[in-house]
């Protein structure tokens, strides 16, 4: 049931209007913004109730011993629009993926917006529409939200925080501390696409590429994988800090070493070329639509086949193995045949991209 929209004397001037402080003030202007922009775009039953919270039923898995998961993430990227996505779609995909990396089925999202005074309404609408689109495509609705406006100079255009909840099917126990010596390390596709796509848009770097961000919701891929092999040890999406930093986290959490083979790690030639220009290592560049899967060696072939059968896992590859190592080093046999450490990212190598 949809309540009748409250009417305002004049609709928002999306084309030329800008956010001002009244849009966060709790008064009529804010209510109009919420109605005409947010509720109109996200349009779902829970939101249409216009309550300060969303109520929902216990998911059926819970009655059979499933567990709930919850995650939250802030999105502060620059630039806001990049080839293959924008901050809105990223805020949906990123949080859906964080839920999915527990092997979970994402249920719903919340969204908090912090908008800087003067932000163009047309950009805001573009972002909100893109978010609504991403959420509809993923089948994970934004059921509650919040908007705040900060004075000019106190924000950087727009910051979005999304929270997601989901449910882990009974019998699934995916966790960063479950990697064991001997386990196989798989990735779902090419590394570094997102980071390079975002950086190509930063004007000071002055180069153009045809590289699109890989930003995507991975929960259907995860669902296929979990259905085929419920006993996956670790799932994680290599976002900020890239494959290298994420594997280091897992190595420390699980107390194992990880040995990679450089020639098996998929990287698009254009991404390699751009990284060369920028002096970056693709292993440290962010991804937003890829996952790392660590599983017992006997499950590797099945999982690879399942991943490759899914559109988001077509380039999946076996890139290394977990080894006994009390120092939890991530090492790599280079394409040249030598060995090296693949270290944590030292400092902030890159601009904000996720």
């Amino acid at each position, binding site marked *: 049931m949809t309540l009748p929209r409250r009417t305002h004397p004049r609709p928002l001037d999306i084309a030329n209007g800008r956010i001002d402080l009244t849009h966060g003030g709790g008064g009529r202007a804010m209510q109009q913004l919420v109605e005409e922009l947010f509720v109109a775009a996200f349009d779902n039953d829970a939101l249409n109730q216009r309550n300060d919270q969303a109520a929902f039923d216990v998911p059926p898995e819970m009655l059979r011993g499933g567990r709930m998961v919850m995650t939250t993430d802030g999105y502060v990227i620059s630039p806001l629009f990049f080839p293959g996505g924008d901050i809105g779609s990223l805020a949906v995909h990123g949080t859906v993926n964080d839920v999915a990396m527990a092997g979970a089925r994402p249920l719903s999202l919340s969204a908090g917006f912090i908008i800087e005074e003067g932000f163009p309404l047309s950009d805001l609408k573009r972002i909100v529409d893109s978010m609504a689109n991403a959420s509809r495509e993923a089948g994970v609705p934004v059921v509650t939200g919040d908007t705040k406006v900060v004075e000019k100079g106190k924000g950087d255009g727009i910051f979005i925080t999304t929270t997601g909840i989901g449910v882990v099917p009974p019998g699934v126990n995916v966790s960063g501390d479950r990697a064991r010596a001997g386990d196989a390390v798989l990735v779902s596709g090419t590394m570094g696409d997102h980071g390079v796509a975002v950086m190509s848009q930063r004007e*000071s*770097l002055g180069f153009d590429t045809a590289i699109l961000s890989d930003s995507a919701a991975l929960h259907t891929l995860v669902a296929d994988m979990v259905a085929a092999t419920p006993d996956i040890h670790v799932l994680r999406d290599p976002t900020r800090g890239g494959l290298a930093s994420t594997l280091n986290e897992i*190595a*420390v*959490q*699980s*107390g194992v070493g990880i040995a990679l083979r450089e*020639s098996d790690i998929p990287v698009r*030639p*254009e991404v*390699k*070329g751009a990284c*060369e220009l920028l002096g970056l290592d693709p292993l440290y560049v962010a991804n937003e639509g890829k996952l790392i899967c660590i599983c017992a060696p006997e499950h590797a072939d099945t999982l690879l086949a399942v991943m490759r059968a899914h559109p988001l896992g077509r380039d999946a590859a076996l890139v290394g193995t977990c080894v006994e190592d*009390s*120092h*939890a*080093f991530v*090492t790599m*046999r*280079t*394409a*040249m*045949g*030598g*060995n*090296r*450490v693949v*270290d944590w990212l*030292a*400092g902030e190598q890159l601009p904000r991209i996720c």
Partner: protein
Amino acid sequence: MKYIDEYRDGGLAQALARTIAAEADPARTYHLMEFCGGHTHAISRYGLEDILPANVRMVHGPGCPVCVLPVGRIDAAIYLARQPGVILCTYGDMLRVPGSKRLSLLKAKAEGCDIRMVYSTMDALKLAQDNPDRQVVFFAIGFETTTPPTAVALKQAQALNLKNFFVFCNHVLTPSAIAQILDSPEVRVLGTVKLDGFIGPAHVSTIIGSAPYEYFAEEYQRPVVIAGFEPLDVLQAVLMLVRQVNQGRFEVENEFARAVTRDGNSKAKALVAEVFELRKSFEWRGLGRVPYSGLRIKAEFARFDAERHWDVPQDSPPDNKACECGAILRGVKKPTDCKLFGTVCTPENPMGSCMVSAEGACAAHWTYGRFRDIKAAPDSKVDP
């Protein structure tokens, strides 16, 4: 992209390594210094030491622009950043290099100095144009490769008649540093450092050409092979050096002929000569004062010279006592010889300049090679 992969072919690398092993005389050891940080980085990044025979050893040289700048020049940059109205801009790595009194530009920035990271000299110039009421100082560092862009910026500033753009010039010269190493007592008299040959710089040589190395190949009787920064370039250069040593030759050979000529880039050289002149001497970290090894801004461009405009201190405070960067830059010590390596000093918390830049010997070994000396790795990475 094809272009890059050509120089990173694993099969070719293995084949080259086998040829090196076959031709290297098992009765002797070959100590080869790669001058450039770019080569140091490539060697560590691709694990090339693993595929070279045990008697071919690479010695890391001082060719990392961030590493060779002495503490005094960092202090001077901090001094400049503290002047009222100044915006100091520089390349990212410089921010983390420790100066004296545990200061760094990064800490000065946190204290409130206006210090900005730029990607090019043009960014600095633009900053000056955008902030006419501020004085913008560009902290210029680097070898012959980065000097021409600074020269261009100075000429542009002159053409635009900018009143608020300054350069703090720290450009240094490669050949004089190599000569200084070969002249050092460790190499000449004591024989504690053995150097049988040099891998010559890639990018630097595109500017200065291969001719400047002819003098010291002859004078010091050491072979030089100029090489590109790709792993196969490095291996090919090692093979060429091994052959020269075996045959008792000491010539300048050019592996990087796809980019380097004998005379270099005459346009760039002319531009540099128009704007800069030699300093009588310049202090290097590890090498001390090296005669005619640095550049200063010519009188004609004096009004853009930060050292003339402000009374920049010229002290030379000592390095952190425990830091071995100096000896490492001369090839006398290895990173693991330093007590602080990997314990107190890591890329997150560098105590010396060699741990800052990815091209520094300590950072390269810590980042890529430390699994070889497990002992040096702190236990912090073990399951908490």
